[in-house]
């Protein structure tokens, strides 16, 4: 086997330019994702900068006065009138909206300029602002009528935008939740007025202190960068199996294999050489990738030696599975008449494994069945084991997937030996 092992490494060496690409490409990818993720998943609100124009056609003070004036002419008792009038002062939607838009909390990512309607539209068309918030004339009066007296139609604020970008969606969510809060408060306060409950004023309703994030005991958070760095490294290691197999096409085409057989060597030694070289190559690739990204980005800060040993063990299990897959692809290649079909199949399997294993696409966009299927692929299994290992799982939790990975290896090796042509079958 030694000879064949050496031969396969020489074959890799012959294509050192391509091997270099295979080493550099994932590194570049990890670097790029390092950039992308910092502005995407982590602290996603910090990088958002929304520019919006506010067109205020409403005069809230006059609106309130008009509302209170008209209230006096309504057939209500004096008590009710004072209650409603007091509620109205606490509920001026236009003013509340301005407060909300100018609060310190929103100032960090929201940039509001007050404009008249015409110039706002002009800026929108020139894409200088993301959206226009328009508060129509007489809004306060209409809103108060609708909120407190349930009279007249609903009062509308208009949000004008031409695209539905993330910025517009964030703005829309803000306004939606603001309006529904006001609606909710008004509904509560008017209901409690009519059912004789305690007075609830709009602005100062207490916020219940519930919820929050909780961490599992003894579990460490995984950063999305760790996730992607691992996912990409695993995928590229997996692709070594396809590479090895496609290098065997040349050996089939150029009758190398036949000559090996004629020299009286057992054919399985050839296959074993393939598997062994794939194993070493994928270990090398994973090691280089993870070590470099650890030193550039501090991938796993402050981990113990035990952690690194466990990590290596899981990765070595993965590389064994990759070696087994390479043997299977090589066996298929020699068994099938058309080597292109075999390499096409290995090519497709690589992509399918990569996708359902969660290495190529963010896992949350996959349907549920694909996510659970991903745990059956060697790369998906290794990824999920590593994630658990980073969180600080004990080895007791992991023996099951490790056992499965071992079974996978044995089964694939068995299949490839069975498929691989023996003497007299070629």
């Amino acid at each position, binding site marked *: 086997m030694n000879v064949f092992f050496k031969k396969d490494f020489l074959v890799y060496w012959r294509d050192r330019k391509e091997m270099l*690409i*295979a080493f550099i*490409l994932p590194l570049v990818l990890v670097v*790029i*994702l390092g950039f*992308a993720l910092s*502005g*995407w998943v*982590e602290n*996603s*609100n910090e990088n958002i900068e929304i520019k919006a124009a506010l067109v205020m056609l409403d005069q809230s003070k006059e609106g309130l006065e008009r509302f209170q004036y008209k209230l006096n002419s309504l057939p209500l008792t004096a008590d009710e009138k004072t209650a409603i009038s007091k509620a109205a002062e606490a509920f001026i939607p236009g003013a509340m909206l301005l407060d909300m838009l100018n609060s310190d909390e929103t100032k960090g990512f929201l940039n509001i300029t007050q404009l008249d309607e015409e110039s706002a539209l002009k800026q929108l068309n020139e894409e200088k602002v993301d959206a226009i918030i328009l508060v129509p004339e007489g809004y306060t009066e209409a809103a108060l009528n609708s909120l407190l007296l349930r009279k007249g139609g*609903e009062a*509308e*604020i208009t*949000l*004008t*935008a031409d*695209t*539905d*970008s*993330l910025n517009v969606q964030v703005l829309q*969510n803000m306004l939606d939740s603001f*309006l529904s809060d006001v*609606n909710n408060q*008004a*509904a509560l306060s008017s*209901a*409690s007025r009519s059912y*004789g*409950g305690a007075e*609830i004023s709009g602005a100062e309703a207490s916020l219940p202190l*519930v*919820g*929050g994030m*909780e961490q*599992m005991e003894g*579990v460490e*958070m*995984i950063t*999305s960068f760790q*996730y992607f760095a691992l996912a990409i490294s695993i995928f590229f290691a997996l692709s070594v199996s*396809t590479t090895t197999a*496609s290098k065997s*096409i040349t050996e089939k085409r150029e009758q190398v294999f036949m000559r090996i057989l004629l020299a009286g060597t057992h054919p399985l030694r050839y296959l074993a050489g393939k598997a062994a070289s794939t194993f070493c190559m994928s270990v090398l690739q994973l090691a280089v990738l993870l070590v470099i990204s650890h030193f550039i980005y501090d991938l796993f800060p402050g981990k113990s030696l035990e952690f690194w040993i466990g990590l290596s063990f899981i990765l070595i299990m993965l590389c064994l599975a990759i070696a087994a897959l390479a043997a299977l692809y090589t066996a298929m290649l020699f068994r099938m008449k*058309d080597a*292109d*079909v075999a*390499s096409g*199949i290995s090519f*497709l399997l690589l992509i*399918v494994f990569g996708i359902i294993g*969660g290495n190529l*696409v963010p*896992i*949350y966009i*996959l349907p549920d069945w694909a996510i*659970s299927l*991903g745990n059956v692929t060697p790369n998906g299994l290794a*990824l999920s084991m590593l994630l658990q290992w980073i969180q600080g*799982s004990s080895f007791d939790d992991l023996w099951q997937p490790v056992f499965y990975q071992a079974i996978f290896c044995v089964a694939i090796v068995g299949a490839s030996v069975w498929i691989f042509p023996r003497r007299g079958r070629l």
Partner: protein
Amino acid sequence: MTSILLKQWMKEKRNPLVLLIFIILSIAATLMFGGDRGSKIEIEVFSASGEISDSETEWLRLLNSGDTFAFTEQEEKAAKKKLREGRADLTLKLLPDDYRIIAVMEGPNVQLAEQYIYSVYKRELQLRSAAETVQDKLEFRESVQSVLEQPPLKLKLQASDGGAHVPYDMGLQLLFGFTLFFMMFTVGYKVNVITGDKTSGIWNRLILSPLSKTQIYLGHLIYSALAGILQIVVIFLVFHYGLNVKLGDQYGLLLLVIVCYTVTIVAFSILMVGMMRTPEQFHMLFPAVIPIMPLISGVYMPPGTITSSILLAIAEVIPLTHAMEALTSISMYGAGMSDIWLPITKLLLIGVICMGIGINLMERRNA
């Protein structure tokens, strides 16, 4: 040129399995990954007390009234296991009238879910505390509910021309993304025939034949492009007729974008083939390069999510970005030719550059 087309076709007829497997698998993958439209994000819920009580069932009902998330009951152990394996973004632990979100990984869904769950709890708890002070709690609740059914204050969305504001259809974006993504493999696989021809010596014989180089290249180009276009058209037809997905009403424009994109991808594949000497090298590089493209083009994320200017600059040279822009604006916003000429021009420009460099590289190798 026709003789090259014929040659390719005869090869295909003799051994149709590979291309068929490729096209069928790509279509199946697109349907599977892109066809899962509008489904809710599932969040598993367990109770801190071990068993879901009546009041917790009520909370579940309230949580499930939204349309982004679906909350399902689950055993604590199973939910946590799924979370730790990285197969779920978050899980929800119910406490008496309180909750905790458990997550092990940062992600966009966690924030979204947190906001949503908090708003549900806030509303209900405020309602309850207000109801404490009144006599008839049931009627109080109904009265509040009746107000909220027709909310007095509303937000109206509109486009700047006064027309309706079109909400972004993320499902459609994924569908287009996966369709274009998988098509690249088919085209690349077909263009790779050239390196195969070179290693087997067919290429040299072709050069000696009276065919001109232009004809040889055009033959290969057109054949690969046809395979790619066929694949996309079949997928779109399945979505349109089979799954009733609305792709807009400008099929001519859609087809134009598809053709331009396919030609660009053929050119890109020729560039890759030009850089590689054997089909095996191509097999190594191609599947490593392609999956990066949708990530950088932002196919998997809502538009506007990527803000890094470096990434945006890289995305400009990726054909997928422009094709996605053209396809989504045609089918979501009803864009016309005047709106999509820019992305189409960029697409074709990338194609011309790739083709130029690619053929140059290929010819240099031959000499």
